[in-house]
């Protein structure tokens, strides 16, 4: 048989190497994963996790989680997650040696166009989980990266060391220090543009940031990509529950976050 798609996503139980808090909101889950799965992973893709029964709760549907890190050499797959409900509570209960059934890698990854030499990554909170592996890719391709990391409080700034270790310029903005408002963010970004350090934007998660980046992008002609979230059932494109609207030319189209996304053209995305 020809023209039949090849197998790209795998359902398999992985064993837990560690699952430690990063601060009092976020935890890092490290799974032992086979080399050939890790080799297929790309920044921006996600896995669909089958959370265990825990504490009398039985999460039913899988939960989507961005790949926070993938290390074929070490045989490790990392997720950075925030405990919000039954599924993530169950994830938090996983201990060394437990098995977690994962499905992936799934979705369309970030792309870095040849002429995007200076990348600007703008993220807040758990959005960093999604954008982090992009820094690795940028480093591999020898692109310059500026990471603008926003959080409520300096204690919740994650991954800044990680970004710095990959050669990125890190700019931190926090509510506590009064530096994270949109006006200031705009100033910071305009500063980068003025310095010729912004060929493309990468963002995720925040509605207000998206709107600001779209305005700046439009004004300055700078493209970008955004990773979006939506509730998912199948995670592989079958059920059409994860759609979001996008502007395509003069029409609105509905695209599946799990399949056409989670990474989309920043200018086509519609703020919610």
């Amino acid at each position, binding site marked *: 048989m020809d023209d039949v798609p090849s197998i790209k996503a795998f359902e398999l139980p992985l064993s837990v190497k560690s699952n430690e808090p990063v601060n009092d909101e976020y935890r890092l889950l490290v799974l032992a994963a086979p080399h050939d799965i890790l080799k297929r992973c790309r920044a921006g893709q996600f896995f669909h996790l089958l959370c265990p029964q825990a504490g009398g709760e039985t999460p*039913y549907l899988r939960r989507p989680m961005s790949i926070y890190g993938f290390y074929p050499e070490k045989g490790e797959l990392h997720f950075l997650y925030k405990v919000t409900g039954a599924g993530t509570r169950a994830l938090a209960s996983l201990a060394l040696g437990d098995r977690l059934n994962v499905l992936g890698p799934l979705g369309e990854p970030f792309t870095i166009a040849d002429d995007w030499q200076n990348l600007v990554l703008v993220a807040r909170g758990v959005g960093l989980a999604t954008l982090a592996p992009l820094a690795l890719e940028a480093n591999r391709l020898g692109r310059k990266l500026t990471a603008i990391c926003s959080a409520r409080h300096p204690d919740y700034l994650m991954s800044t060391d990680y970004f710095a270790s990959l050669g990125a310029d890190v700019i931190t903005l926090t509510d506590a220090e009064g530096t994270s408002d949109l006006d200031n963010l705009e100033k910071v970004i305009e500063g980068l543009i003025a310095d010729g350090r912004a060929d493309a934007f990468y963002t995720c998660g925040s509605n207000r940031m998206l709107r600001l980046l779209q305005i700046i992008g439009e004004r300055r002609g700078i493209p970008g990509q955004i990773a979006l979230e939506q509730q998912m059932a199948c995670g*592989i494109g079958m059920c059409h529950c994860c759609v979001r609207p996008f502007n395509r030319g003069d029409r609105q189209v509905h695209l599946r976050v799990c399949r056409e996304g989670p990474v989309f053209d920043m200018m086509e995305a519609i703020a919610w």
Partner: protein
Amino acid sequence: MVDLSVDISGLKLKNPIMPASGTFSEDLAEVFDLDRLGAHVTKTITRGWRDGNPTPRVCEVNGSMLNSIGIPSKGVGAFIEKVVPFYAHYETPLVVSISGNTADEFATLCSEVSVPGVAAIEVNISCPNIEEDGKAFAIRPSSTHDVMRKLRAATELPLWAKLTPNTGETSEVARAAEEGGADALVVANTILSMAIDINTRRPKLGNLMGGLSGPSLKPIALRMAYQCARATGIPVIGCGGISTVEDVIEYLIAGASAVQVGTATFIHPTIMLSLIDGLEDWLSNQGLSSVKDLIGTVIDGEQDEAVVFMEAAP
């Protein structure tokens, strides 16, 4: 070697396990070899383009789920051009699920999708019929019979009628579908349900209400499969809450000739393969050489016919 093949009114399937409409698509080919399945069943399509319902379109309820996807559809043209050729790469027969707002529109679509490459048509008569106050065709025997006759006249292909649990007249509807020309019954679709977020006081689905699927639905759909097998002479394809090989066996014993697996595929995308293997193992452990020896073997002989068809007194 156990013979897993079944015959659905002349259409031979290599095994009785197939996906349920709306929980399967070409995308699954990236997870396993689709040629292992007994049949391929597509998401329901409509004639024209449709957007589907507002989000959120799914939510969890107690180890099961609700959905109100609606029927987003690119229309019949796109379907015949893109989807039918995709499945031509497989030996497994293709079953196309269709739906329409009126019986005539439905029948037109039925004839339009009767193209080479399509082995059977599953008619989703569980969708609202705007000529009957928005009630699904399959809620009443009369509307079932009317739409099935029009559909029957529209195609030479085998017609599988997909019934709804949102009725108090399952046996009557099943007989009406048979008399109207159905070659098989798919039993059943989701049951209308609701969930509310008590913190926001908003329904958990954008569409307010949606269909319950998954394990909670099983005892209801199994009862319907049994009733339909008793009430008609055409093959029944069981569907609803199947997630283990024991569930498959229960449906086959109840009288289903094959089964469809829906929500369970969302939880375990490769589950249909495990069910095929598990069924083969179970049959061979039981010393059965063919799955056909299991179908309809429920021991209900001492029971009054009246009990079977009447409503049970609660």
